[in-house]
């Protein structure tokens, strides 16, 4: 039984809120209701307030923002490419954003200027988006976009390897590797605020394309015949993805697979029409990263396990499963 859409969104929102509350309460220093309420109302002890507002809350908000961005971007790209395996990584946006961030670390700009990593990631994402769009224009159709993305990803990966290869010292190497692994540990509310405008504008662009993305399920020719302005749709989805994912990578580094998994989990509930999957995918994406980050914090490892690593460990097998299943559909 498919829930009506407002009900479905309300259900996902409530689930996310519950999960976020749990994430605030759970940690190495566990907090039950009393200190939690005390910290929130300002009547608790200072230690609890510090743990809550300076450590857990920024980390939680960062995880939710990043997951929501990746989930929505995945749904938008899957709708645009009509391919269930599409995600921000596909366009090369994630790889180029990570490269941009790593470049600032390599050349020491990150240490010299505040927000340099963020600026690097967003610049990388925007360049990738512009290049992908440019290639896609020359190679008509959506396959051109996918091929351009694969090429961009590979090239960005190669440049990353080059940077790691020539890392000036072990510290800078470890800095760069940390960035590519993806994490929301030690983020501040300021970091979140710096990424917010990009994520908000990107999401607004993607949401403005929702109706067209739904129509695109019919194929490009039929969708255009029913009045879809394909060019405008492509720009909004590609631009929105680039800006939002740039902001997300600036906040947390590279985190993969959320963009594939989140839409996959919701699309049956919205009738396999991707325009309706944008908001639910964002909510589920946020749940995935918040949940994965809880796992990261709770696992008793000596070195901190990175969020991006956990996401990939769970996401990659699911990716293969989805790939095999969609191939099966095509063979029928």
């Amino acid at each position, binding site marked *: 039984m498919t829930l*009506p*859409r407002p009900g479905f969104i309300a259900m996902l929102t409530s689930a996310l809120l519950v999960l976020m509350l749990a994430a605030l309460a759970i940690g190495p220093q566990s907090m039950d209701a009393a200190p939690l309420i005390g910290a929130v109302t300002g009547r608790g002890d200072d230690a609890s307030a510090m743990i809550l507002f300076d450590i857990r809350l920024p980390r939680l908000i960062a995880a939710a923002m990043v997951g929501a961005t990746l989930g929505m971007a995945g749904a938008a790209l899957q709708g645009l490419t*009509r391919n*269930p395996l599409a995600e921000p990584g596909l366009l090369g946006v994630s790889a180029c954003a990570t490269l941009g961030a790593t470049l600032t670390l390599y050349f020491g700009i990150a240490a010299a200027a505040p927000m340099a990593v963020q600026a690097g990631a967003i610049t990388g994402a925007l360049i990738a988006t512009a290049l992908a769009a440019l290639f896609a224009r020359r190679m008509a159709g959506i396959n051109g976009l996918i091929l351009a993305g694969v090429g961009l990803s590979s090239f960005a990966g190669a440049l990353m390897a080059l940077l790691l290869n020539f890392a000036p010292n072990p510290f800078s190497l470890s800095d760069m590797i940390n960035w590519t692994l993806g994490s929301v540990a030690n983020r501040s509310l300021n970091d979140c605020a710096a990424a917010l405008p990009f994520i908000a504008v990107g999401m607004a662009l993607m949401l403005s394309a*929702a*109706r067209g993305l*739904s*129509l695109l*399920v*019919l*194929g*490009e*020719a*039929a*969708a*255009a*015949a*029913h*009045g*879809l*302005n394909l060019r405008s749709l492509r720009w909004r989805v590609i631009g929105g993805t680039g800006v939002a994912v740039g902001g997300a990578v600036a906040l947390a580094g590279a985190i993969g697979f959320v963009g594939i998994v989140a839409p996959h989990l919701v*699309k049956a509930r919205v*009738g*396999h*029409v991707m*325009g*309706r999957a944008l908001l639910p995918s964002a909510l589920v994406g946020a749940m995935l990263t918040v949940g994965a980050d809880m796992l990261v914090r709770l696992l008793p490892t000596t070195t901190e396990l990175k969020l991006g690593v956990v996401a990939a460990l769970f996401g990659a097998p699911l990716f293969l499963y989805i790939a095999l299943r969609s191939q099966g*559909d095509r063979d*029928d």
Partner: protein
Amino acid sequence: MTELIARDLTSAATRRGAAAVLDGCNLGLYGGDLVAVIGPNGAGKSSLLRAIAGQLSHSGHVTIDGRDARAMPPAARARAIGYLPQRDETVGPVRVDTMVGLGRYAWGASPGRLSPEDQRAVDAAIAETGCGAIATRTIDTLSGGERARAALARVFAAQTPVLLLDEPVAALDPAYQIASMRLIRGRADAGAAVLAVLHDINLAVQFADRILWMDRGQIVAETPANDTMIAGRFRKLFDADILTSGDGGGRIATAALVGR
């Protein structure tokens, strides 16, 4: 009455310098008309429909009731011209009624958000095409014939005064072919201007008013569908013969392909 005029449609040559696919096509299409487009593979039939639908860059003009189609915004054009591509490329297990509802996009509808008017148009199209029994099934579970009918329902739901149908009955069994052609004829009788690419000369003779004969990017002739001259025209284009039977009044009633 709807009037669609296409003048001197010539497709832009591709970048590799291939010959133009459309070469100066002129046609007039009027409300109540069902016009069949017939010609060999590669003659430019699909290109002609795509050019009129605004999906192929071309020189020349298309006007609908005197308005320049190229100057119309995409949604306004989609409310005037319905176009059924040769292949249905819907992906994923989308329900038939959802897909038919997408036909209302140009009126501002989106899945889950149909106005009462949109809903009436969708219900009518589903009923008209006999898709009632499959309305809640998903596209991937349908037979080829059911899928073609669902696609037709989607185009009908748009309630456009002009319909461009690219091989609407290709790959359908005879019963579905006849049923679909009756539906299309019904739309023309209800006032729509219909241009349909057909490969079956017999269906063209039985259901169409006129035939546009196409070859090498040009409309080489236009004849009444039941004109006795069609046998000669057919032989010229396809190098194949048809056997015709008269209706007793000097007109053709049926045509059958004969092997050489």
